């Protein structure tokens, strides 16, 4: 039942879905100033890519893609852990998570 998706849904549609999600993520990153939201949007982008991987994996019958999704998740988890820790730290210092305030890196 489930295994028939590749006969029903054209792969392009899934790819398009992935693209749309990715671009929504990009848009979120660009539009929002809340660092947490931005981080979330990055997660969204990662997920969009994950869909692609999973799709190609399923359509090509090659498990490697799914393994990559797995790795991406690993990296995402690590990224979120560190990123959020950083955010908390930033918040402690600046009382805000507004990215536009984070211009101390400039020299």
């Amino acid at each position, binding site marked *: 039942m489930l295994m028939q998706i590749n006969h029903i849904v054209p792969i*392009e549609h899934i790819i398009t879905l992935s693209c749309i999600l990715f671009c929504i993520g990009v848009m979120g990153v660009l*539009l929002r100033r809340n660092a947490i939201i931005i981080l979330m949007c990055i997660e*969204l982008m990662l997920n969009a890519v994950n869909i692609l991987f999973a799709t190609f994996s399923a359509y090509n*019958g090659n498990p490697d893609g799914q393994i990559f999704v*797995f790795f991406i998740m690993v990296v995402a988890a690590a990224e979120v852990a*560190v990123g959020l*820790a950083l955010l908390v730290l930033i918040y402690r210092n600046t009382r805000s998570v507004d990215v536009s305030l984070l211009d101390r890196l400039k020299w």
Partner: protein
Amino acid sequence: MQYIFYTLAFFAILCALFVVFEKNPVHSVLYLILTFFSIAGIYVLLNAQFLFIVQLIVYSGAIMVLFLFVLMLLNLNKDTEPQKSVIFKTAGAIAAGSFLLVLVAVLKDTQQSTELSAMTDIGLVKQLGKTLFTKFVVPFEVASILFLAAMVGSVLLGKKELY
């Protein structure tokens, strides 16, 4: 069958849009969780059980909880986020939009793929485990080191003495 997919896809996109446009960060998080659930559903449709469950555990169960936790910890309710200037907003929207345009254009340009195979059991844990621990064993180990590093890093960052 395909309706499930399109429903999920529609739902995912809708929720994703809400993630971006919702004022309240907590709502954003919740919408993102919904998006992730939809994506998990798509994984199921793609016969990727393992991914489905990992998506559930890792993204919904851990990452998003973490987000929510941080949001609550910092008590960032709505309206604390200052708005961007219109220029940046427009620029951002245009950039993202043209990005999508380009992506879709590229996609259009690619050749229509023919269906290749329909191996159904690749999403099973056994199958993935075999691949993971043979072909990808080194990246796997590296990933665990990465995790360790991330853990140590976040613990260190959380320490008060650091700043």
